[in-house]
């Protein structure tokens, strides 16, 4: 089973990396970029039937640091 975990910095947590990318986009001449936040996509291949609570525990214990990050779990066919 394919699982995609999207980890994002929580709102209000400073993202210097996103800001640098924002400036770089402007430097390349792309106008109208209001904000950039950089997150992380983690793709897992887990045993069929792995329950949501187990995936959530993986996120809370390791994949995300919930002090600074939020996460969303997407399950479904390989895309």
């Amino acid at each position: 089973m394919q699982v995609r975990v999207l980890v994002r910095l929580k709102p209000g947590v400073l993202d210097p990396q996103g800001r640098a990318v924002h400036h770089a986009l402007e430097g390349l001449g792309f106008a109208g970029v209001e904000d950039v936040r950089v997150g992380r996509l983690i793709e897992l291949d887990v045993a069929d039937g792995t329950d949501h609570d187990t995936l959530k525990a993986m996120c809370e214990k390791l994949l995300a640091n919930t002090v600074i990050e939020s996460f969303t779990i997407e399950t479904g066919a390989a895309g």
Partner: protein
Amino acid sequence: MAFRAAVITFPGSNCDRDMATALEAVSGQPAIRVWHGDADLPERLDLIALPGGFSYGDYLRSGAMAATSPIMRAVIAAADRGVPVLGVCNGFQVLTEARLLPGALLRNAGQRFVCRTVSLTVCNTDTLFTAGFSAGETIRIPVAHHDGNYFADADTLDRLEGEGRVAFRYAEACNGSARDIAGVLSANGRVLGMMPHPERAIEPAAVPALGGADGRRLFANILASLANA
């Protein structure tokens, strides 16, 4: 006093030897070197030191992988029993990832690696790490980090300040840390995480080019506090 300190080495630690050298220079006793894959710590430890470096190449988040290593279960158990723990730089990151200390260390606000000697204000002198400093004293300790920007939510920051758990603040702009926090204590005051490197400032005389002597005082404080306990 036979001072027994352990220095943990993770894959990618690079200040472990410096930490061991500092502990030996100040205590006269060789530090016990412990590998991250070990399940157990030596017995009767007076201090556990988590050194700086880039454990596991900073994969996922700085300190995140090291926090899951076998030895950290033993470190958490020892901390729960009241064994003093000092985490420096990456060691501080590991302590937050292991939830022994609150908050997290984000990328420096200026995006750049910061490597220089900075001034710190000593905020709490009622701890085994800081007992020999004067309240409000400014000390000089080197920093060298990319992810040293301390973050915690406002409630947590208020609580840390209210409980005297901010050990050190940057006396000058450094990395964007919330409320200029450079070092944080656990609720019982026996776990200290700090981004600056006291082990890089251990020359007996104050030699600025070698980092000065203020780091040595921090280690001396630990010895003196334990001897007086």
